[in-house]
């Protein structure tokens, strides 16, 4: 059952992105930025928690989960460390994604060639 929920959740978010890409002049960069902000807004209203409960790990795969995690880390930082936590905690949960992307990109770039 969790497989079906995860597939539907990821599929629908990708479908929405593709519809925006096809029917407007926005580029892929616009859409990913838009979806991150959307994820933060959904998290702000507490809606993203329902998605996490419903779709499990698949809810953290689309880029919307990036906004969700950023917002949650930021607000949690305020409650644990005060105003400083807004800044110091902001990247705590998304650090794994950003750092792994940078590290893998660097080493793979050293060993691979760009396509002509």
């Amino acid at each position, binding site marked *: 059952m969790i497989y079906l929920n995860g*597939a539907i959740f990821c599929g629908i978010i*990708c479908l929405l992105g593709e519809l925006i890409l096809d029917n407007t002049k926005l580029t892929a960069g616009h859409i990913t930025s838009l979806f*991150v902000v959307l994820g933060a807004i959904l998290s702000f209203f507490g809606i993203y928690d329902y998605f996490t409960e419903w779709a499990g790990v698949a809810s953290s795969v689309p880029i919307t989960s990036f906004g969700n995690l950023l917002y949650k880390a930021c607000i949690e930082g305020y409650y644990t460390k005060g105003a400083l936590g*807004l800044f110091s905690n902001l990247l705590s949960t998304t650090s794994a994604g950003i750092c792994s992307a940078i590290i893998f990109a660097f080493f793979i770039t050293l060993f691979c060639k760009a396509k002509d």
Partner: protein
Amino acid sequence: MNKDDYKLLVKKYTPSEERLKNALMAFITGALIGIISIIIFQILTSYNIGDKEANVWTIIILIFLASLFTGLGFFDNWVAKVRCGLIIPITGFAHSVTSSALDYKKDGLITGLGANVFKLAGSVILYGIVSAFILAVIKVVLYG
């Protein structure tokens, strides 16, 4: 039939069919990535890794696979074909970082690779951080 009529006719029929196909492809690819992520997660939890850690490892494995396939050269074709099906999941983030690193490698390690690695993915990080910060401040001001 004159030229304008013909153009209108072409416009009327071709794009909608293409759009339907694109949308379907994006849905199927997105669904597949969702299923793959759950399979990876299930395998990791069966090795006694906690739920939260397994979740992060799943994301890291997906990022690694997307970067590796981009480096090997065939991920670009996949992205060109299914577009949002691979751009919206975290694979798109990894792909944009690795492909801009590869493209600018020829300009040197500092001014090429270093300066351009976030050329495409930078906007995601910037707007993510700014919007999360603003929303958190709003929440703090309104609800304490």
